[in-house]
């Protein structure tokens, strides 16, 4: 129903020889909240910079609202704005910081009211904050001023890089409320990078998993890293330190990364033995995450050094009376893997 705001195609970005991002195809619809997950160095920040038009990709095409973006001409930077994880404030007053983008656009109507409004959105009282100097703010307040200076521009896209990583709980709540307002009030699209999976699955319409610069699909993904060893039977095996093992069919190499859809994983509170064609691994439940967009629950099981998600219905969880800390057995087929 809603149109696309971004479309990425055959996108490759390199630093020198090193490929940091490689996306065959990605579409983002207008007005959605997109979460981006992935370990450090997986290309999340590079993706955000490309979406904010701050970085031209080495290869490939980016479309914004159906238009091909050429990075050599000034790209449509004023439509999308990025909030850095560690925000930079100009060495000026809060007012000057928030009004800066509007002044750049020579849009000086009613500045005082609009700055006041933007500050109110992020939960800062204009009376006491407007005239403060940039260095008279706490970390959380600075992050909120930085957000206000972007919200005041009413951008079509708000890109947030780890917005909650270095702020207190109260600021985190205010930052999220203000960001959601952007979607509610003028239909902004939000792209949020975060380490906090629980939170991200709660708020995002869709979660992209990035691994080593590649999209490991949308939604939660289990990633099992090599090395894999070939066994006599021609199957490949990864040994865990506690002696358990995971068996897979034909990876593309001994260092390959296996991707496992949480929907293909089941959980049993009772002891399971590995069977032919099916793995069984013993572990303990560490987290249970409600997935807003699927209406299901992700159960996170930690087994030795790896962590696996299983997607289950609420009813199934109730039937098995699963709870965090419980010892369980996860099972999945030898051929359930995709390979990166």
């Amino acid at each position, binding site marked *: 129903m809603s149109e696309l705001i971004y479309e990425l195609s055959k996108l490759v970005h390199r630093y020198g020889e090193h490929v940091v991002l490689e996306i065959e195809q990605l579409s983002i619809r207008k007005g959605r909240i997109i979460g981006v997950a992935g370990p450090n160095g997986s290309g999340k920040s590079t993706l955000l910079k490309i979406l904010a038009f701050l970085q031209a990709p080495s290869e490939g095409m980016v479309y914004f609202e159906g238009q091909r973006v050429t990075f050599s001409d000034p790209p449509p930077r004023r439509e999308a704005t990025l909030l850095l994880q560690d925000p930079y404030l100009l060495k000026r*007053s809060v*007012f*000057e910081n928030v009004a800066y983008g509007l002044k750049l656009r020579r849009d000086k109507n009613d500045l*005082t009211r609009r700055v006041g409004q933007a500050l109110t959105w992020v939960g800062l009282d204009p009376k006491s904050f*407007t*005239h403060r100097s940039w260095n008279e703010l706490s970390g959380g307040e600075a992050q909120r001023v930085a957000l206000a200076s972007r919200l005041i521009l009413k951008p079509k896209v708000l890109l947030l890089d780890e917005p909650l990583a270095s702020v207190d709980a109260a600021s985190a709540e205010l930052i999220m409320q203000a960001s959601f307002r952007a979607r509610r009030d003028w239909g902004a699209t939000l792209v949020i990078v975060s380490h906090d999976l629980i939170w991200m699955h709660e708020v995002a319409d869709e979660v992209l998993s990035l691994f080593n610069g590649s999209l490991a699909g949308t939604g939660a993904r289990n990633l099992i890293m090599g090395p894999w060893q070939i066994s006599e039977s021609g199957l490949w095996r990864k040994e865990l330190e506690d002696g358990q093992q995971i068996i897979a069919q034909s990876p593309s190499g001994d260092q390959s990364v296996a991707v496992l859809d949480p929907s293909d994983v089941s959980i049993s509170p009772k002891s399971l033995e590995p069977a032919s064609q099916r793995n069984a691994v013993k572990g303990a439940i560490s987290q249970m995450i409600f997935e807003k967009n699927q209406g299901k629950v992700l159960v996170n099981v930690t087994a030795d050094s790896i962590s696996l998600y299983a997607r289950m219905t609420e009813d199934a969880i109730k039937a098995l009376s699963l709870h965090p800390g419980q010892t369980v057995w996860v099972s999945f087929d030898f051929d359930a893997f995709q390979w990166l």
Partner: protein
Amino acid sequence: MERKRMKPWKILALTAILATQLLLPGASASAGEPVLRMATTTSTDNTGLLDYLAPLFQKDTGIKLQWVAVGTGKALALGRNCDVSILFVHAPAAEKKFVKEGYGITRRKVMYNDFVIIGPKNDPARLKGLSIPTALKAVTGKNAVFVSRGDDSGTHKKELSLWKAASLQLPDKKKWYIQTGQGMLTTIKVAEERSGYTLVDRGTYIKYESQNQGNPRLVILVEGDKSLMNQYSIIAINPESCDKAAYNRTLGFIGWITAPKAQKHIADFRLLGKQLFIPNAEQ
């Protein structure tokens, strides 16, 4: 509703405007009046003679005299480079060569005094009353500290000629022979600090006496020899080789200082009641 306080760049801009305001009148004023630039020996400057004459000259002619006080050697170099319009110096041999080479014209005598050798009151080398050659021999024999200008000035040239006349080798690298490379008063101060002897023109010595309320640490020990005569002359820089030289003003000054009125001013210039220079311009 921006905060009403001065921004750093506004302060900078204001300072710049203020500074320009401050500077412009000063710059235009000095550009307006005619200036005559002179290179002179340190003795005419150190004694205060030029401080005394310059306002009188400006009153009579409207020309402002500016001078650079350097040794005579440096003064001649400035003249050769056309950096000044007139020289007021005291090294007759070098001056004659300068004129002969075509750099200067209209050399006129202005005044004279004499050189003296001064030294500590206790006179460790016993110079008092000796003639110049015997005095210099006594200095050499006793390795007494002798402070030289060493700056190619008129006084320095005179000192070199005295060593030569006494058939003595110049004690150039001797430990007791100190070459300051500086002006006359500074050189006297060095002699004072090191309890040494030095050659000085009488005018500067009187200035030094008066600075010390008539009770100086260094006193006159050798004087009165005919070879100690110290003639000051004035030379116009040749307008042919320095086309922009303010030749008219130069001639104005030469005419003024050699005329009886200014000659009397020179005779009247006294410190501690003593006359420093004796005018001798030929009319």
